[in-house]
């Protein structure tokens, strides 16, 4: 880290299921990028290949790299593909089935065929120990050593690799979990252990169990993966520390990642939001919605007053779109801080269908990279959103700037037969309908993070990226009456750039569960300070000796409610702390739900602390190197029955200037194509971002 601040080269590596994106950043802020195919058998191979190419291009040795920041889907894929460790669970007598029972809610209504994911720990490997605490942490029944011994015998007999320990009310008192852990370490020292009181000391047994188990399940996988990567980087002569992007958008050391792999499940999508937040600050746009649309999904996240929004819970491995945020249980529940990202199954590869009643659907099934959209000619037969975009003339008709060969005619035929005919529309109208429904898909994700959280999307600017974001964002923005869309440089590898923008960060949470009424300010301040100190100690233990930033917050609710709002606590030592929290909470409750309940007691459920190593303020903006696209041309593109086909110039980003230029315009680049629809105007800002003004 300190080397990076001193002016070393930095490397961002974003490993996805299809592509591994790399960004090499020179000490003066110049970025070069590479996109190589991921090697799923051993991800490190592709990373090494990409690094070698970048080093050669820059003419530097591996030793010049001061820091490698890594976003990875390895943990996610281990869960999705059920390739985690042979994992056991030790739990309290009477509760072996908690993990499997979950919250019993259905993920879909009226669907008699639905299934829930198989638990990560099978029932046979869930062991009960005889003990019991109450909700204050008092021991109701001391832990029985024989029951621990029985559990250990079983773990050994079943040859398990990892073990989760989650006892009822352990958030209030970790002693029993520690006793189990100690006994296991004495007899089975090689076993990967995860204690719920360490990973998530928070009330609610299922959520805690599920999170603890998931951590245990991916721990050996991540351990192995990082060891392999480190060995290979060593062999390349690279001694730089590896930092890993967490779901919450901060980065942590690889050592910590091995202990808390559950925190890097959403590592990939988080980086894009970080990049958007950094850009928002740079262009002075405090309220931004990041819109990241790739081949299979569209993701939206809100940045408000330059702050990224985080949530404390999400599901992984469920259906991409459940139709409703209320329907849970389709995936594995994780209660760990993550950037609040809404994801819907609408991307370029999304399949387009017409149902019995003549309604048009885009996604959530996707043609993926294989067989891909029909127009790719790689075997796809079902029409996709990309086929509609080609039909409309929004995309190049024969070859994308990246070199991918297209057949517009094949795409057009698919739209004609599968969409236009059953809907009795012209081919153009049908394709345009598909495009608009695709826009509506993104709009759903945007609504989920704005309207459903009490925020008006019209107060925000869109930052659009990913392979398809720039193509749909402006039209989507119009449907939500959002006035302005920004398309950054190198929108296709924007997430990898985000890795280089991240802070080193640790989030800690502790259940407190006391009424605000009876609290002495000093008590609360002391508890919060202790937690903040713990977060700082973690940083120091990892060797971060720079000036640290710390922030505190509380999760509060009216006594009786089950859902908390997080309220920042900026000044721990100010007088009237409790009164200030009560006022801030009341205001936030009113803003979110439209009312407050003055006089009703407020409960402080959790305390939170964040410690971060701030980015050097003087660090220069990252400037991706771009190659001009010389293929100036124009296409006839279709914009709905009223406008029909319009001659649309196809230009390079830098053909735009400070003078606004009216749509329709298509801006073609190596990474992505940006559409400026009719009625919108586009210009370039000083940093090279495309700014699209959307007319209502």
């Amino acid at each position, binding site marked *: 880290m300190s080397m990076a601040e001193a002016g070393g080269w930095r490397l961002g590596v974003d490993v996805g299921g299809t592509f591994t994106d790399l960004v090499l950043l020179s000490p003066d802020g110049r970025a070069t990028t590479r996109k190589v195919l991921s090697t799923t058998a051993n991800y490190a191979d592709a990373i090494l290949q990409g690094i070698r190419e970048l080093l050669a291009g820059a003419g530097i040795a591996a030793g010049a790299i001061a820091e490698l920041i890594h976003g990875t889907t390895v943990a996610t894929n281990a869960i999705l593909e059920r390739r985690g460790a042979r994992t056991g669970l030790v739990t309290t007598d*009477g*509760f072996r089935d908690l993990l499997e*029972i979950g*919250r*019993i*809610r*259905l993920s879909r*209504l*009226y*669907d*008699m065929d*639905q299934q*829930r994911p198989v638990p990560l720990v099978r029932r046979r490997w869930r062991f009960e120990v005889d003990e019991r605490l*109450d*909700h204050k942490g008092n021991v109701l029944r001391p832990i029985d050593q024989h029951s621990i011994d029985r559990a250990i015998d079983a773990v050994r007999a079943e040859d398990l690799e990892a073990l989760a320990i989650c006892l009822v*009310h352990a958030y209030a008192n970790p002693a029993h979990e520690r006793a189990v852990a100690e006994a296991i370490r004495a007899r089975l020292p090689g076993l990967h252990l995860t204690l719920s009181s360490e990973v998530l000391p928070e*009330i*609610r*047994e*299922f959520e805690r169990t599920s999170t603890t188990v998931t951590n245990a399940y991916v721990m050996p996988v991540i351990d192995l993966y990082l060891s392999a990567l480190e060995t290979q980087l060593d062999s390349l002569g690279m001694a730089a520390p590896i930092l890993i992007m967490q779901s919450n958008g901060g980065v942590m050391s690889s050592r910590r990642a091995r202990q808390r792999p559950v925190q890097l499940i959403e590592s990939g999508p988080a980086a894009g939001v970080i990049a958007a937040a950094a850009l928002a600050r740079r262009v002075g746009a405090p309220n931004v919605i990041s819109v990241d649309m790739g081949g299979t999904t569209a993701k939206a996240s809100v940045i408000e007053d330059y702050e990224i929004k985080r949530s404390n819970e999400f599901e992984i491995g469920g259906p991409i779109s459940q*139709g*409703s*945020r*209320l*329907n849970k249980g389709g995936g594995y529940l994780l209660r760990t801080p993550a950037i609040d990202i809404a994801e819907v199954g609408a991307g370029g590869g999304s399949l387009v269908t*017409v*149902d*019995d*009643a*003549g*309604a*048009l*659907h885009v996604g959530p099934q996707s043609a993926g990279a294989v067989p891909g959209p029909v127009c790719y000619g790689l075997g796809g037969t079902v029409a996709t959103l990309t086929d509609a975009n080609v039909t409309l003339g929004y995309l190049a008709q024969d070859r994308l700037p990246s070199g991918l060969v297209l057949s517009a005619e094949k795409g057009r035929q698919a739209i004609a037969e599968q969409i236009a005919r059953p809907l009795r529309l012209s081919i153009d109208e049908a394709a345009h*309908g598909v495009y*608009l*429904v695709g826009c*509506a898909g993104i709009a*759903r994700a945007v*609504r989920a993070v704005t*309207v*459903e959280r009490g925020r008006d999307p019209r107060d925000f600017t869109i930052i659009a990226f990913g392979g398809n974001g720039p193509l749909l964002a402006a*039209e989507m923005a*119009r*449907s939500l009456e959002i006035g302005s869309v920004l398309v950054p440089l190198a929108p296709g590898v924007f997430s990898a750039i985000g890795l280089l923008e991240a802070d080193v960060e640790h989030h800690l949470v502790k259940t407190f*569960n006391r009424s605000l009424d009876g609290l002495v300010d000093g008590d609360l301040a002391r508890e919060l300070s202790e937690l903040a100190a713990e977060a700082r100690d973690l940083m120091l233990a990892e060797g971060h000796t720079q000036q640290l930033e710390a922030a505190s917050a509380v999760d509060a609710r*009216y*006594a*009786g*409610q*089950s*859902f908390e709002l997080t309220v920042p606590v900026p000044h721990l030592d100010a007088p009237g702390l409790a009164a200030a929290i009560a006022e801030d909470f009341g205001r936030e409750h009113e803003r979110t*739900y*439209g*009312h407050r*309940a003055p006089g*009703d007691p407020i409960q402080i459920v959790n305390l939170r602390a964040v410690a971060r190593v701030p980015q050097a303020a003087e660090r220069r903006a990252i400037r991706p190197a771009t190659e001009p696209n010389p293929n100036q041309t124009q296409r006839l593109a279709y914009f*709905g*029955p*009223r*406008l029909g086909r319009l001659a649309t110039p196809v230009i390079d980003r830098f053909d735009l200037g400070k003078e606004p230029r009216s749509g329709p315009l298509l801006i073609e680049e190596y990474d992505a194509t940006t559409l400026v629809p009719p009625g919108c105007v586009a210009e370039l800002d000083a940093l090279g971002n495309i700014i699209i003004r959307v007319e209502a």
Partner: protein
Amino acid sequence: MDARELSDPILLELVKHALDAIVDEMAIALVRTAYSNNLKNSMDMSCALCDTQGRLIAQGMTLPLHLGSIPDAMHYFLRKFGDSVRPGDVFILNDPYEGGTHLPDFYIVKPVYRGCTLVGWAATVGHQLDVGGMTPGGNGCDATEIFQEGLRIPPLRLYEEGRPVDAVFAFIERNVRVPRQVLGDVRAQLSACSAGEKALLQLIEKYGAERFAACLDALLDQAERLARNAIRAMPDGRYDFEDWIDDDGIDSGEIPIKVTITIVGDRLIADFTGSAPQVKGAINSPMPFTKSAVYACVRHLIGGDPPNNEGYFRPIEVIAPQGTIVNPVMPAAVAARGLTGFRAANAIFGALAKIAPDRVFACEMGGDTGVSFGGYDADRRPFVFLEFLFGSWGGRPTRDGMDAASSSVVNFSNNPIEIVEAEYPLLIERYGYVQDSEGAGEFRGGSALVRQYRFLEAEGTLQVRADRQKHLPYGLQGGRSGTPSTNILNPEGAARQLPSKFRHTVRRDDVFRHALAGAGGWGDPFNRDPELVAFDVAEGKVSIKRARQEYGVVLDPITNSILTEETKKLRQSAHSGRGDKR
């Protein structure tokens, strides 16, 4: 987006999604601000939007059994207030004899005005924690007339032009055991209404009132069309099914629920003639609730993701003779009508299974059981704990029933044990599967769940509504029934077996254990893949003995591996000798 450019299917899709998002927002606002477990954790509530005529145009993905009841409630509101509704008004009712379905369900609705023009209604239903009456929790089955069940609220104004009607709030406050929670939850319903109002106005603003209204008509028609298509695809004929409730907890003996479904072209008629007369115990199901059960079940056979509005009710007719348990008249008690709703759903699915045997599951188990503990602590502060227990799904034509899943006609969550223990004088000592409880089948039913409570106050009232001790969740196509449910007081002491429905005074350290029934199986268990049987044995859900007896699968007692020859022999000999004997 300029809609003049839009072809209709696309505009409709956009409006449909927008409506879904709004009712979701309403439900989220309600859940997040609610105080009682049953609303905030179990989500025993629904949110909806109606048009100016009270037609249901969208309901959140919350509780199907509420869905069909909202138009009835709206009918009573409009009948009474139709001409006098003004901006800023809010209305409330809970009376099952004037638009409600039982007293704990508060219907709170708010007219939505654009300027001075009524453009629709935001509607909510929330199951309140207590409504006074003889049983804490308002859900007892031992009342024998509506007057014992608590506070009856006819359609009333709760707000008049933006000002709260103090008299109504005061009556509610004085008549419930836990006013802070109940009024908090009423506020939560109001939040949901406001959220719906705001979002609906934005939507109408965007598309214009006229075009929006046209979209609603089209969306209602679309749902109707999908329903008619689905029904038309069913073979014409009469399909009947009978299921039973064990008793009403008073004096009824077994209670038949009979339904005959007739398919004529694109119409479906569900006729409950032949069901029992209304009973003394409080399990009578008012007509709106019975209709809801029919709509919810039939919806499972309508493909194509129809818009969640009342359009799909149109081809469905429900007949239930007055004075029966499925259409009671004054003064029948109805607090625990949920049980009859669930049983009606079981019977309807049984009849639908005859229509679509390759799609419909065997009998699920869930919803029958409601448990409430109520009383006062040492400082005379009241507490009321209420929860409903689910459940598992019946075996399906292509796969096992899900273990531990909410009933498909509601969508409940369970309550976090640690939260319950932190908020109530209860310890939950066990929550898990019961071995050998599944209805055996080629595709087995889900295992039963057991939940065990220890009472920690000096004294209180335990009231339980359960069933399925005698009449068990049925299997289909040769699948077996699940095991019966049980109520046991102090299982590790005197182990007293209690009837399915009771009210009992409990004292400190009394332990109550309820096991749900197991769900029914689908298909002949002797056709079950032996590997699946072996897996269930390895997981401890099925015993090695039961594997042999019910499934004809012989396992090595030490290694659990399948003894192929013995299994083959056992299954063959059983095939020749089995049949009606089993």
